[in-house]
């Protein structure tokens, strides 16, 4: 329990954020997409975090942004996890030619410059969040696949797997009994990392104006606020620009730190493995 305190702290912070934003969505009477007060109202009784230039409640916008970002991040993470694991396993275990083909695809995606391609694709397809999620997923699975491939290949070469094969264990058995347990943790942790990156990428695209212009998105909020001429000569940035930046920062930090901590805890990494003395 004592060794796991970072997980509890980070998880707690994420939970607190979720609760805070859930309240903003459902307990806050102000809508996130319609003006509900005067423009650029400072934080106060009616609007907890003030309003933007159109008079839309900031708290409600932030809350909507959290859930849409989180949902997108988790969908991308799940997609990258499944795709990466499958491709990595295929590259490690499929017979000759097929493995090489999968490997080539993995490396193609690894080699592609992500941001420019994302910007181009986002410009064409970014209006649909589903397509956006798909695009981000497509650019996130390759590193996972590469890691899974390496791990699976290493396990496959171990004596106990070779023995299991000689004992009559088929590919499916070896996959299930020996390789998947070794690989799943690695893929899951890397998937969590994808979650953080997806949120950032979506916000970046939105900031560049390539996302869905009607979506409740932190990137869009930041973009609008920062383009409001003269925002830094007033106090508006304090409640219009700063909250989405802070929310993005906090969320990303929590997710990334959690992923990093879990990665270190994977068996066989860093000091996670138990060292045995000789008999």
């Amino acid at each position, binding site marked *: 329990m004592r060794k796991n305190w970072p997980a509890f702290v980070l998880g707690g912070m994420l939970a607190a954020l979720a609760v805070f934003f859930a309240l903003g969505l459902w307990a806050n009477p102000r809508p996130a997409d319609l003006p509900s007060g005067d423009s650029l109202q400072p934080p106060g009784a009616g609007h907890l975090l003030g309003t933007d230039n159109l008079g839309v409640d900031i708290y409600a916008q932030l809350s909507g942004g959290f859930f849409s970002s989180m949902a997108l991040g988790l969908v991308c993470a799940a997609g990258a996890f499944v795709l990466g694991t499958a491709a990595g396993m295929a590259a490690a275990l499929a017979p000759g030619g097929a493995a090489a083909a999968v490997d080539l695809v993995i490396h193609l995606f690894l080699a592609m410059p992500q941001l420019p391609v994302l910007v181009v694709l986002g410009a064409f397809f970014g209006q649909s969040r589903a397509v956006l999620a798909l695009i981000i997923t497509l650019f996130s699975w390759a590193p996972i696949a590469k890691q899974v491939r390496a791990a699976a290949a290493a396990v496959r070469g*171990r*004596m*106990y*797997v*070779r*023995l*299991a094969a*000689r*004992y*009559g*264990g088929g590919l499916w*058995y070896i996959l299930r*009994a*020996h390789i998947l*347990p*070794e690989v799943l943790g690695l893929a899951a942790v890397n998937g969590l990392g994808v979650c953080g990156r997806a949120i950032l990428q979506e916000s970046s695209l939105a900031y560049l104006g390539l996302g869905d212009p009607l979506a409740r998105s932190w990137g869009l909020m930041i973009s609008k606020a920062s383009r409001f001429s003269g925002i830094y000569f007033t106090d508006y940035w304090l409640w219009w620009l700063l909250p989405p930046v802070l929310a993005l920062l906090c969320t990303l930090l929590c997710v990334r730190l959690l992923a990093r901590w879990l990665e270190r805890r994977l*068996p066989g990494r860093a000091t996670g*493995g*138990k060292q*045995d*003395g*000789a*008999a």
Partner: protein
Amino acid sequence: MALLEAKGLRVEYPGFVLGPLDLAVQPGERVAVLGESGSGKTTLLRALARLDAPRAAVSGQILLAGQDIGAMRETQLRALRMEQFALCFQNAAQWMNPSATVYAQLCEVLARRYPRAAWPARARALLEEAGLPDGTLDKTPGQLSGGMAQKCMLAMAAALRPPLLLLDEPTSALDENAREDFLRFVDKLHAQGIATVTVTHDVTVARRAADRTLVLYGGQLVEEGGTQQLLESPRHPYTRGLLASFPELYPLRDLWGIRPAKGPEGKGCVFCARCTQSVPACAERQPPLVKMQDGRKLACHRGGVVCRMRLRGIHKALGGQPVLRDAALELYAGETVALTGPAGSGKSTLCAVAAGFLAPDAGTIEFEGESGRMDRPGGMQLVAQDSAAAVNPRFTVLRAAAEPGLLAGLYHGEQEAREAVCRALEMVGLPAGEAFLQRCAGELSGGQLQRLALARALTMQPSVLIADEPTAMLDASSRANVLRMLKGVQNAAGCAMLVVTHDRAAAEKIADRVLAMQNGAPV
């Protein structure tokens, strides 16, 4: 014509059956009947001499110089005893009259042929021949040492120069010097053309005092052949095991008897239960004693000790470097072969090739029957060098050890798997409690992992076990323990074992044969 011939001789008394067996002794021949306690040696000898135990039922023919003595009455036999054949027993002192002097007892025999005047001279000549001092004549058996009494008894048996002497464990109670003394006396008699049949459990006596040796086990002749040949290359698994039990023959090695088992049962081969290469046929009928091409006789359904694994002309290069050059290796059922050599000499490569984990560049690997399969019980099993890599660290002990059996479909239900694993764990000296079964393999020490890997191999009841440097990662004490345990397991399980070690001294201790890697081939 044979001097002594038995045809279809069968002796039966409650709890034991000898034969039916055939044997023939030519004039002047020295024959040894070799076998362990209870094999029926003495019963055979007594039947040949018509000294049957009261409750024994004897059938078959016994021909002495063409006469059927099996059908004779006791009165007719009496005329033949001492004249045509004579016996010498194990404890001479017990068979002699304790109150009469040696001279008096010798005279009793001499009286059957010689006039009274010739007795003293004959008696002294006999004693001199036996290498006994003159004074012996006036002593009673109680005053003689064991060796002297034994020689006195032989002198009495040989007094009338019968053409055949039957010796029943004549030297088993004697020390080495007395034995040699006694056998020298036998040699002298043999030089005069007397044939001997020596019954013994001592291989060294057979080697010393017989031209031909018959091996008796469970009342059956299992092997027969020239003594020299038979001792150098025993064919029958029992003969091999018997020879291996003699420290005189293998001074360096630890002693390991033939694995114990229940005695012969039913109508199968008598050695079936203890045999390391038995097949179903062995339990069904008794193999006949058949003549082999080289004139030796053998009673074994498998044609003698089976070669489980034969590597021939193996070449293997790793990374462009030739590692194995024309390597050849034969592994016979039930034997332990140690492969030694310095690091990099190709020991492990040979193991990997034999186990099928490396394909040789040239050469053949043959396994007898299904001995080469790892996915079948009774096949080949490998205990790899790096035990940490050989067991999935995520598996529990139970799961790791049960894996091959589960994949082979050996177990019906978890309980059966659990029992099989527990048995194997006990064999290798690991705790078989529930707590240990549920431990994660990754938490075990190196020595425990090594034993676990071995236990996993044993659950498959292998007929060939290849152990590649099983002690490489262990300290001296664990190494000794593991090697002894390995040999004990091999002996009990009866598999053929190829064990690789760089420890030559340890190899000499546990192995039947020690091979060293030289220029890429075991020598």
